[in-house]
């Protein structure tokens, strides 16, 4: 997608977010993404943006998809993560059939446990196939509840469980509170084995969404910093606007510079190779953490309460790197590219 087309799409996403997300961002954090919002996202073509047209998706290219993820994340990282899980996980794992079509329209919910690709050492529960049934528990399931779920069994099979499981939501989880983050209890005959190399498949899903994670991270940084620029213009201490203090102005401006450079790279990502995209992701997730920390800080006490909509960015920036990527594996991938051979593993 050309830069001009990206700009047009950006305006459309912002218009949508202003209308459908801006005023309900706090309630999304408290009560989750509503079915209505999922339907509105779908109607606009955002939910299934990355899915092929044959299943009712928008079949948009990677640059356009990144625009959607980034701009949505600037309003609600949870909403953006929902689009990501739909496009980059369901879209990659599932067959191009009616089920995926329903996920694209929001009619069917989809959730996934990215274990063991994200963090293999976590206690993920036990999930086994025996005969023609699948039973047990699987932790770290993230997504929209009430539909189907993808997970890897103990013996490494990637399965899609269509019914016969419950998700017990951990109601106050750290990040992406608009989605459920749950333990799945499974007792089902209604499942399908997608791949026998579950771990590898999940790993390739993760490494295949470097650009998308970069986009979400930059959206988080943009959302937090934009609020901070506005706030520090009007908030006064010692009778001067905060923005007039050099530490405040320079810290925010430097973060903005880092953000803008990364945004430019994101826009031109069609010209980047895989290594450069991984570098962009590493830079962006690190930036998101720093930008959100300063943003919360410069909001003072108001930054610490959810009504001001800054603390969620702080939580989500750190959760992004744990729930939707594997930083240790990324470090190794990056070192391998930089040194041309396996490095950084000791």
């Amino acid at each position, binding site marked *: 997608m050309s830069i001009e087309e990206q700009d047009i799409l950006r305006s459309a996403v912002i218009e949508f977010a202003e209308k459908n997300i801006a005023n309900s961002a*706090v309630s999304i954090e*408290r009560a989750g993404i509503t079915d209505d919002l999922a339907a509105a996202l779908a109607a606009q073509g955002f939910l299934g943006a990355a899915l092929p047209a044959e299943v009712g998706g928008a079949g948009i290219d990677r640059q356009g998809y990144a625009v959607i993820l980034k701009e949505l994340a600037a309003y609600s990282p949870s909403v953006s993560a929902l689009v990501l899980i739909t496009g980059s996980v369901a879209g990659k794992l599932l067959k191009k059939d009616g089920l995926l079509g329903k996920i694209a329209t929001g009619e069917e919910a989809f959730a996934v446990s990215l*274990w063991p690709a*994200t*963090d293999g*050492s*976590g*206690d*993920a529960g036990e999930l086994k196939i025996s005969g023609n049934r699948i039973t047990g528990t699987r*932790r*770290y399931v993230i997504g929209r509840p009430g539909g189907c779920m993808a997970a890897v069994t103990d013996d490494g099979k990637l399965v899609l469980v269509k019914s016969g499981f419950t998700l017990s939501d*951990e*109601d*106050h*989880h*750290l*990040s992406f509170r608009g989605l459920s983050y749950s333990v799945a209890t499974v007792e089902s005959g209604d499942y399908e084995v997608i791949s026998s190399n579950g771990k590898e498949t999940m790993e390739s899903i993760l490494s295949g969404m470097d650009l998308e994670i970069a986009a979400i991270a930059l959206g988080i940084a943009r959302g937090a910093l934009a609020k901070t620029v506005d706030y520090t213009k009007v908030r*006064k*201490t*010692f*009778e001067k606007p905060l923005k007039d203090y050099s*530490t*405040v102005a320079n810290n925010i401006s430097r973060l903005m510079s880092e953000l803008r450079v990364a945004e430019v790279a994101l826009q031109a990502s069609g010209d980047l190779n895989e290594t450069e995209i991984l570098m962009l992701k590493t830079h962006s997730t690190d930036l998101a*953490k720093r930008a959100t*920390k300063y943003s*919360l*800080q410069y909001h*003072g*006490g108001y*930054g*610490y*309460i*959810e*009504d001001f909509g800054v*603390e969620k960015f*702080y*939580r989500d920036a*750190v*959760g992004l*790197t*744990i*729930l939707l990527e594997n*930083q*240790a594996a990324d*470090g190794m991938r990056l070192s391998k590219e930089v040194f041309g051979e396996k490095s*950084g*593993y*000791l």
Partner: protein
Amino acid sequence: MDFEFPEDIVRAREKAAEFARKEISSKKALMYDRQEKFPDELKKKAFEYGIVDYTNPWSMLVTIEELCRADPGMGIAATVSLFGAEVIMLFGNDSQKASYLGAVQNGSKMMGLAVTEPGGGSDVAGIKTFARKEGSKYIINGSKMFITNGAIADFFVMLVRTSNPEDGKRHHGLSTLIVPGNLPGFSRTKITGKLGVRATNTAELVLNNVEVPADNLIGEEGKGFYYIMTFFNISRAYVAAQAIGIAQGALDRVLEYLSELQSKGASSSITEEIQMAASDIATRIEASRLLTYKAASYLFQFKPNPTITSMSKAYAAETAVFATEKALEITGYSGINGDLERFFRDAKIMEIWEGTSEIEKLIIWRNLIREARGGN
């Protein structure tokens, strides 16, 4: 110079740790966090156990550290019911001490310190709440924001403006009043949806023609700014202790997680980068402790050193934030599903309350340059 604590303080630390083991669990901490509920029972037990005693400041310092190490929200809630008491202790008259201090010291009453307003917290001299003197009473109008114990305290030490400064110096004309929480015209609204320390109670206070007897004035009229700054110099050492407890609690959990990995034969996943991150956390905690104990040593010998106090508060607060973030990165799912995600949320308040990190650094600078210029 001896870096070891005397026996009685070592015992106080052990006693606090023992209390924490008995009374604070991950499950309880999670419940109070989710429900945003003040742990009344815990606070009561802490007094019964004899570990909340601000007349013994060193014991209190290490007690706060140990309780916050177990859980920051519960640890702070259990030890914050006397917040502001030092203002009365240092500047109040005998009758005020008799009427108000005894009850908070034995845990039967709670108090709060109300300085911050919706319009600002850093700029203490900029507060707007006004107390007009009429005969033998003050009539107070205004509002206070983010007040700890706000919805549950029996009374507050409140900073108010009693006169407009004629010399243009905004920190003149401020006074401290004792304001009971149940007076007509005084409304208090609990603030929900905090990022962390959700077991503590925080509220917005609105005062609409609230009348208090003129006898409730602490010390002299017009000296309120000085009293509050003196108080912050004391309380900041305790906040540093909270922050050290949080960072130590994070390190404990990181080490527990990594030891378990080693026992499971997964040592190779503990890369050098992780090892050094753990070492960094431990080093910063130790540095925070040294600074804080130095600040406390000056303070508890009645020769406060505001530079060191501000350094200790700012550095320990940054350490808490650094430690909890690193801890989450190291422990991944295990941390995000366990205590550490709460520690991470709780830690950030350390850089905000009782003087943000920026304000501490400005205080340090002011003192440094004054000293460099020979005290002018």
